[in-house]
């Protein structure tokens, strides 16, 4: 030891404040921790930002030419889809991260602290939300650079972005539940694949559902991710959205109402 300075001191530290302020403090502290982690682990940043950019380039320049879409340019069809796909892939990180925290005993430490119970999950989903804002900006910029020309106007574009962020936020809670259920982070990752694979690829994210085999179409057309992709795309491009916007809101709300309590209960029990 370098010195024998006092390890303890007698000053009363804990300042009593309204409990709501502390809940906000705890949420912020956990969210900041998760965002720092995102920046510190290069691979997670790659997954969050570089991978979607690669997807944009791949589908824009390699596959895109072979995919006919109803109205005009494939790039305009693609970018809103990539946005939705990225937020779903990103939520996998929530599952892996929580499983890791549980495995390493960090959750154990949190549970012995006088912090708000819901802040561990709440802070993480808020961090996800902020990451998705970053993704939204990056993909929009890259998209415009490769020829994306959304014709819906700025208002609907923001509306579409908010809708997408809300949908992804609801989804985060589901992946949080997966992460808390998995025995370790590898399993958590494996568990998410059977969920995200059909949800993202058997959907209207990359190609119009009408080009799929007829047995697949009912699922692909009606599943929530397609609704979200259709809604976001329609709003951004200024095309009719049908019921997609309302259905996406309903799916998001329903997922939140079911998955958030499920994850919270799971968190309380996780040992």
């Amino acid at each position: 030891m370098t010195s024998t300075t006092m390890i303890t001191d007698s000053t009363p530290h804990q300042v009593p404040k309204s409990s709501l302020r502390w809940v906000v403090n705890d949420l912020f502290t956990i969210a900041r921790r998760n965002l720092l982690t995102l920046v510190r682990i290069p691979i997670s940043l790659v997954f969050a930002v570089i991978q979607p950019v690669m997807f944009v380039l791949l589908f824009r320049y390699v596959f895109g030419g072979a995919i006919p879409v109803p109205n005009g340019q494939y790039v305009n069809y693609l970018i809103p889809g990539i946005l939705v796909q990225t937020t779903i892939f990103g939520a996998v990180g929530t599952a892996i991260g929580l499983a890791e925290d549980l495995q390493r005993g960090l959750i154990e430490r949190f549970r012995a602290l006088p912090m708000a119970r819901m802040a561990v999950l709440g802070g993480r989903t808020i961090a996800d939300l902020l990451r998705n804002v970053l993704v939204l900006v990056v993909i929009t910029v890259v998209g415009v650079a490769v020829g994306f020309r959304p014709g819906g106007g700025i208002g609907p574009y923001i509306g579409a972005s908010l809708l997408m962020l809300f949908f992804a936020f609801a989804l985060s809670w589901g992946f949080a539940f997966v992460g808390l259920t998995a025995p370790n982070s590898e399993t958590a990752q494996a568990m998410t694949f059977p969920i995200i694979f059909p949800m993202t690829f058997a959907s209207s994210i990359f190609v119009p559902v009408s080009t799929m085999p007829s047995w697949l179409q009912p699922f692909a057309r009606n599943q929530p991710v397609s609704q979200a992709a259709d809604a976001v795309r329609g709003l951004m491009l200024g095309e009719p959205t049908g019921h997609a916007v309302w259905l996406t809101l309903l799916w998001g709300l329903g997922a939140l109402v079911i998955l958030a309590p499920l994850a919270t209960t799971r968190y309380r029990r996780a040992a």
Partner: protein
Amino acid sequence: MSDFAVEARNIVRTFKKGAVRALDDVSLRVPRGQVFGLLGPNGSGKTTMVRILSTILAPSTGSALVNGFDVVREPDAVRRSIGLAGQYATVDENLTGFENLRMIGRLNHLSRSVVRNRANELLETFDLAEASARNVKTYSGGMRRRLDLAAALVANPPLLFLDEPTTGLDPQSRQDLWAIIEQLVETGTTVLLTTQYLEEADRLASQLVVLDHGRIIAEGTSRELKTRLGNTVLVLTFETVGDARRGADLVGDLGAQPAIVEGLVVEFTVDGGPTKAAEALRRLDGAGVALAGLVLREPSLDDVFLNLTGHRTGGVEVSLTETA
């Protein structure tokens, strides 16, 4: 306020719907201002006890007061008055040392300025100041443990739970950590320490409880436990099993406890090791029993267990031979 930092009464904790009894009617009182040792092998219930006292886990039955607060009814008050550091060094590897302490400090609801000062002070004290801006991923095992302990101390709690703080550490890091713990107790902190090492309990703890299969099998000061056991373990190795049996008969009465015969080896605890060893050699030589080896050593936790329970810490039963 009560004289005891911890008062646990008849704690039972079962897992798997009652199939596993991790703790079976454990009561203990931890006096303030000293190190209280919870000694036992893996799976004896030490960690379960710490988890119950730190509100992570609820007891199945029984009750516990920590700093005067009930662990089930007033968990937040308990959490505000304790620090927890564990064998798994629960710090965030992706944050720096400083960021870890800041996070724990903020989650303990300390103000920003207090957290900053406290974090820097602790990093300085624990010899981590130079590494404070580095990711914990780059830390050695000893550094992680010190950071883990620093995190438990951020809020300056009067009671500290240390769950196997030195398991897996090299001897130097272990010595460093022991020095820190001793310093903490000097400044008035109460420490509840779990350990598998008799040496550690002996060095640090004023009072000890020995756990086995979720039950308390012995309690008292380290001196009392050692006196019950004898001060030294005499290990005699013979050339044949027959010689070992004869040898045990010849020298068994020298031990403070019955001799234990396992194959070619006879072990027993003695007071005044060298004298008893010389006497044993004389008797064996006189009877013409050949000896392959003789060792005198400090009693280990294994010896305590063998004497208290008749089984080794790994759970293997051996026979205790009463010798005349």
